[in-house]
């Protein structure tokens, strides 16, 4: 388990919106650029790490009750994406690390890939 605040530290990430979730506890992670792959695995208390940047990333998280998104490789989403996340109460992070390293660091720090329905 990691708090969002710890994830921010581990990934040297920037919080673009959703400071209110910094104390939230995250148990598992999902790294994907295809949203249907994300939706194939329902997990609880998830962070989604992705290199895809469009509003559908936020929509996918909304449908799945995912509260934290981390955009990788230094990608910074546009204001429309940040705004949608704000509306949905979703925290948006951005890190310089690529997807593989991002997932590796979080796995190393104790997040799992296993979901409740796996």
């Amino acid at each position, binding site marked *: 388990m990691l708090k969002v605040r710890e994830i921010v530290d581990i990934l040297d990430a920037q919080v673009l919106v959703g400071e209110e979730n910094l104390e939230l506890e995250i148990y598992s992670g999902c790294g994907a650029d*295809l*949203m249907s792959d994300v*939706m*194939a695995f329902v997990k609880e208390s998830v962070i989604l790490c992705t290199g895809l940047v*469009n*509003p*559908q990333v936020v*929509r*996918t998280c909304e*449908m799945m009750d995912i509260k934290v998104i981390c955009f990788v490789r230094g990608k910074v989403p546009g204001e429309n994406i940040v705004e949608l996340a704000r509306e949905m109460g979703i925290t948006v992070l951005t890190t310089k690390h690529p997807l593989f390293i991002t997932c590796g660091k979080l796995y190393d720090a104790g997040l799992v890939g296993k979901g409740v329905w796996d």
Partner: protein
Amino acid sequence: MSNQAITLHYDIDAVDFSAAGEASSGVKRTLNQLGVNPAVVKRIAIAMYEAEINAIIHAGGGAADVEITPERVEVKISDNGPGIPDLEKAMTAGWSTASETVRELGFGAGMGLPNMKRYTDDMKVESKVGEGTVVTLIVNINS
């Protein structure tokens, strides 16, 4: 929840991809307001979102009709697109005719129809080549 059915209708517009998912978002909000179990809401939301996206990326848009009763939610996503020539193939996990452009938008993993099946209690696909497709998704509220 009262015993009366609630019906909702949404047009699914394919012109602005950034708006994709607004119908599913609206239904999710309504179900949350009605106090439906969050795990059940999540299953409906995911299945409907996949169907909404399909209507946009494969059929040029369509419509969503939703009926909510105390027992169940029925979502009908209909379009006048090209139809599905081989339904069995389409239902196969990983099978997709999506273009590279669609993949760049984060879709086209070929998991949409399998995901819909997985998250619903009942699912029906009616499709005629050259006429269109109607996908019906049913989730029991007390399941």
